[in-house]
């Protein structure tokens, strides 16, 4: 196993990685920006090194300072967490060059999945269903028109380098196609530096279901079942669960097989997630692959009894997975709510500040992953995730009532949080019946019904 590992991240995921290292007997190095001097990951790590000013570009994205720290402190591995440098093939390559193990997939796998159009072609070739659309990028309007004619409207224009909804346009008629191509291209160029576009049939009211996979360096790939992440707001996941509600085991096995095929097709190693769109008729389509640990990995850990971050280390060091697909057994149901320092009563605006009191929930079936403690000041520079609450139940109903209970007892004073929003979702009759889709929040949740903020 590794001797000493640097965590190139902050917040709850840095804490999560440190915990895994402690259980494996690996020494840890935390890096931190000036704004994170009092952060929990700094206090928990064996060593900590300041790598720059608050702005992420100059600290958590500062490859020279991170690599200097890694070399100065003699680490033999780097875990990138999620976000920041986690899906930067260049960073993964630099680690390789200086003989430090990057706990993640090889640079080539990151790069392929980073280009959406290329990934789509590759998956199609491997027999993984993709949404009907263009073969790779479209070069001009007439190509686009041909594709639209063959798959039928509505279609969606997407940027190859895209993400987060930018460079994306839904087109309902042939007449709107040209303008959509132009604006999407301009947007993509501005946002990602590449105007390359591709087309897909627009799947209406889809569910977002993803498969957790694990791959070792001995060509073994397994999946750990599926997660439903349909409860989103502006493409940000807010609540995730496993297994997906109202879905047959057979369907999940089919998804799992497709995900394993996807991983094999790009010689993937490490933990990864293959995301699928599922339409109302139960067809599934490859959407993208996240080549890193994900925020919502704990729901899978809770139902499978695995520790994905520890397994990530195990395969990174070159060991065999040690688990066959037949060993993976799903028990019960797990839900994760992302508690953010955002005010759901005011359009989810981020609300940094000092947490005057922080009493996390506990008791049976409750897991909390957080970097927050009483007295912690949330810096305004990074994302607003305060804590992940994960509940396990013998069935979905128990997981839901337990989550209600856990969120109700979660005491966070000093900043508004998304807890009132989550309680609304948990109480929603459609949600309780398992009727979820990616536009659930717009269609089913009336945010104006949230009681006015007490302090205003």
């Amino acid at each position: 196993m590794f001797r000493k590992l640097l965590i190139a991240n902050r917040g709850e995921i840095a804490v999560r990685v440190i915990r895994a290292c402690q259980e494996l007997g690996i020494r840890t190095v935390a890096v931190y920006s000036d704004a994170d001097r009092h952060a929990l990951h700094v206090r928990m790590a064996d060593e900590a090194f300041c790598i720059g000013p608050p702005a992420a570009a100059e600290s958590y994205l500062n490859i020279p300072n991170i690599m200097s720290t890694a070399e100065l402190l003699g680490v033999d591995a780097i875990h990138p967490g999620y976000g920041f440098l986690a899906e930067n093939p260049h960073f993964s390559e630099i680690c390789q060059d200086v003989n430090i193990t990057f706990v993640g997939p090889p640079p080539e796998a990151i790069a392929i999945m980073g280009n959406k159009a290329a990934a789509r072609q590759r998956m199609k070739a491997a027999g993984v269903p993709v949404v009907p659309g263009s073969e790779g990028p479209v070069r001009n309007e007439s190509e686009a028109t041909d594709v639209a004619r063959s798959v039928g409207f509505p279609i969606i224009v997407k940027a190859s380098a895209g993400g987060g909804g930018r460079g994306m346009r839904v087109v309902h008629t042939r007449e709107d196609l040209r303008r959509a191509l132009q604006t999407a291209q301009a947007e993509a160029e501005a946002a990602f530096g590449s105007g390359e576009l591709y087309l897909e049939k627009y799947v209406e009211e889809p569910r977002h279901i993803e498969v957790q996979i694990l791959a070792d360096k001995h060509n073994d790939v397994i999946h750990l079942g599926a997660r439903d992440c349909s409860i989103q707001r502006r493409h940000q996941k807010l609540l995730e669960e496993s297994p997906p509600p109202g879905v047959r085991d057979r369907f999940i096995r089919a998804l799992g097989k497709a995900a394993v095929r996807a991983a094999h097709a790009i010689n993937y190693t490490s933990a990864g997630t293959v995301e699928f769109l599922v339409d109302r008729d139960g067809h599934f389509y490859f959407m993208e692959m996240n080549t890193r640990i994900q925020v919502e990995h704990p729901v899978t850990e809770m139902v499978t009894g695995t520790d994905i971050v520890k397994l990530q280390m195990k395969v990174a060091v070159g060991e065999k997975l040690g688990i066959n697909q037949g060993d993976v057994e799903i028990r019960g149901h797990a839900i994760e709510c992302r508690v953010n320092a955002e005010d759901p009563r005011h359009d989810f605006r981020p609300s940094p500040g000092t947490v005057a009191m922080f009493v996390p929930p506990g008791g049976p079936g409750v897991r909390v992953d957080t970097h927050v403690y009483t007295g912690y000041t949330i810096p305004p520079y990074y994302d607003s995730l305060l804590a992940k609450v994960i509940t396990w139940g013998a069935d979905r109903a128990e997981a839901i009532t337990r989550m209600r209970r856990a969120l109700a007892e979660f005491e966070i004073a000093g900043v508004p949080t998304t807890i009132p929003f989550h309680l609304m979702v948990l109480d929603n009759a459609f949600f309780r019946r398992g009727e979820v889709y990616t536009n659930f929040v717009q269609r089913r949740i009336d945010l104006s019904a949230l009681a006015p903020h007490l302090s205003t």
Partner: protein
Amino acid sequence: MAEQKLDLDEIRAVIRIASESPDVAELEVESPTLKISVKKVPGGVRAVISQPAGNPVAVHSPPAHPAPAAPAVTGDHLVPVTAPMVGTFFRAAKPDAPPFVSEGDMVETGQTVCIIEAMKLFNEIQSEVRGRIVRILVENASPVEYGQSLMLVDTTAP
């Protein structure tokens, strides 16, 4: 004769000062007529402020992972040279060369005072003020963090 009423504005001002100083966990202020002691919500760092008559306020706050000899605050006349990057601190350009500066030396603004090696590159670090080097805080060839104080320059030196 003496005004016995509490000066609430004064209390508020003291709390504000404590609140605005992120490194301060407790603050005690004592005057002949009033003693104010503030403890902030626990955070990890404890600061002790004392105000002996006539002397400047001294604050020392060791970080959770003590950086080698990094003073958090220096008097008005002492200006630190800080590391603009992570790397290895060298006092001289080559192992056998004389150090750029030693304690007691005068330095001019823009004068190279040390080197930080990072990613095989040697970065010359300049003093941003004119003054006398009163202390070199880091051992030669030691790793330094971003923002770490490397040496102290006394700007009141003649």
